[in-house]
């Protein structure tokens, strides 16, 4: 029997893996992909509770999360292209102009 617990566990696992990617990878493209993973984990959580409470409100919120994820990916990749053009590198720790 699959309960809400199972879905929440999958969601927590996806969130942890995504956070690990954001914290450890050097390649900015992969960091943006990890952010997508985190947003997907949130969506799994919302859908699980939507089913649990038998309401579609959670699904509406998941649509908003997807809209924000699309906006974030578009702007992030635009920034990445500008960064690559100026520095010729996509490694996150080489962009340290504001670091002391």
């Amino acid at each position: 029997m699959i309960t809400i617990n199972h879905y929440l566990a999958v969601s927590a696992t996806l969130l942890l893996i995504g956070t690990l990617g954001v914290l450890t990878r050097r390649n900015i493209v992969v960091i943006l992909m990890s952010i997508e993973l985190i947003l997907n984990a949130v969506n799994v959580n919302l859908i699980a509770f939507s089913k649990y409470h038998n309401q579609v409100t959670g699904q509406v919120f998941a649509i908003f999360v997807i809209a924000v994820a699309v906006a974030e990916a578009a702007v992030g990749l635009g920034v990445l292209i500008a960064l690559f053009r100026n520095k010729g590198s996509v490694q996150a720790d080489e962009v340290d102009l504001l670091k002391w």
Partner: protein
Amino acid sequence: MGDSVFFYAFAALAILGALGTVLFRSAVHCSLALMTSLLGVAGLYLMQGAEFLFAVQIVLYIGGIMVLFLFVIMLVNLDQAAKLKQFNGQTPLAVLAILGTGAAFYAFLAKGVATLPAPASATVMTGGNTENVADLLFTSYLLPFEVASVLLLVAVVGSVLMAGKGGTR
């Protein structure tokens, strides 16, 4: 019975894909693994009766965002980046933090779910899933919907500005 088989299959797809995204060396392989993970998540949506989101996930995420990612990977030519070191200096600390957070998450899941309020008595939903979502989206959540469209407009303008000639200065 068939339910749990499909659940574990989709969950394994989602989690193994996520691990591949974080661990693979080449960015193209990472994006293919991310696609696998998104497919698994789409399957989980379908199992929860969210058919509209299942379609949105396939069309928009796998068809849209991932093509955008692959396009950018092609533009910035990551061949030499794949030969560099992939993980930064704070990796051990990050792994420790993730393990600690994960322990807290799973401890909460083990204890906390039992304290959830019981689900509301089955309000019978007439019509299909898409119909119900649209009903709610265009009545109660009309203002957030319009705000989201403004956000998307701003994102379009911003990404054109960033990726276009103005980003060179």
